[in-house]
């Protein structure tokens, strides 16, 4: 069923965008996507599936496929980790800039 849906979606895109892609490329993309989704089942995202299912259900997302749940979980994890990484960079930059401004050689308190 999923492949048929993809097929219709592909056709829809073809009609919209003029079908510039070759059929081979399309199949490769689909194959890559399928393979990726399969590999998701091996990977356990930090965000549990039940949590994602609960909140997706709240917004009306209806899908019995676990791979999509994993995809959403991984996407959210990526988003949060990006935010956390940026925050860490900001934190470190703020610490280092304070030391530079005050030109203080003493060990500053690392707490913010």
């Amino acid at each position: 069923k999923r492949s048929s849906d993809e097929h219709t979606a592909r056709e829809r895109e073809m009609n919209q965008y003029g079908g510039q892609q070759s059929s081979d490329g399309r199949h490769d993309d689909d194959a890559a996507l399928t393979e990726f989704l399969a590999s998701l089942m091996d990977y356990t995202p930090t965000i549990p599936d039940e949590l994602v299912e609960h909140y997706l259900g709240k917004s009306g997302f209806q899908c019995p496929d676990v791979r999509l749940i994993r995809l959403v979980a991984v996407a959210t994890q990526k988003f949060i980790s990006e935010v956390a990484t940026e925050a860490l960079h900001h934190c470190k930059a703020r610490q280092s800039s304070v030391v530079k401004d005050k030109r203080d050689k003493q060990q500053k308190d690392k707490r913010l």
Partner: protein
Amino acid sequence: MSDGGKENGKDSEPKTRKPAGGEDFVRAIAKIAVAQICENEGFQSFQQSALEALADVAVRYIKEIGKTANLYANLAGRSECNVLDVIQGLEDLGSIQGFPGASDIHHSLASSGVVREIRQHVSLAEEVPFAYSLPRFPVSKEPKLPPSFLTAGEEPLGEHIPVWLPAFPHPETKSTVPTCNGGVIAGDAARLQEQIKVQERGESSVMCMQQRLAANNGSEAVFGPGDSSKGKRTVDINPFLAPPLLYGEREVSSIVPPPRFIGGAGVANHVTGNMMEGFALASPIEDSQNMLSEVDERNKSMKLDGRPIVRFKLSSARKSLPAFKNVIAENEGDEELACSFGTRDDEKDEMKRRAEQILKESMENPSDPAQL
């Protein structure tokens, strides 16, 4: 040098919004998951408000993906979401920040840059599973259905009662006196089931008032709201289930239209003492202080059957003064008042005489308004 310090200042004040009752568990899980991700990044501590804010952001992100994917699915005429719907939703959300290939309008969704980025992230990041194992939630309780006639093996009492309806409670239930949720007229199936279990176990439990009605005993004691754990057994007479009074059993006054001479003062059956003071203030002769002291001495005008209607005093220009003996009884309680006239017969006669006197005077002076 510590890697992280305290993470703060990102979104220091989360909105003061009370989440729904069942949300606490889910939000706690979201907080744990977010904290685990951040710990993986290198943070060492977390301020509570910052953690709540970031968990809220993650929850909103999930909800937004779901909403957008559902939107695209509905747009395509489907009710169930597709992987391509999800990818399109991710593209929409990522379009603000940008992803590789966002400007390419003719790309297929399967080879979207979003998916590529996610794939990179999966391959690079460590796998950190969630710390706890979770059950599927929300856990829904199975409703306990009461046994029907068929399952209980009972015969319904009449042909008009189908066998698939819940069985009637046993008549032994009315002998035990469990507590009941007062005021619950609509039968609750769970309570009926519980009540049947009570009979088997012999313990006290919550029982519905409908049991009483089904027991078809109007004078049966019905209980006020009680705590099932305490197992109270107070017995109160439910006035709605008490047997109807026969005629003449209790004195009930007949309604008499207010006499015309009393005028616009109105008829008040249950005027309290304060109102009488209010009436008295209009009178130039008596003051409110004397009024209460004179309550004992005076008689009121009343109807022939003894139940007083008029509560205010007549002025001293009149020869007879209203009686106030029953005012005290009135203030003490309506029931007492109603009972009092049944017992004090001699006062009744005196009141009757006074009432007749007043009526005579009213006939003589029809245009004389009551001076209060």
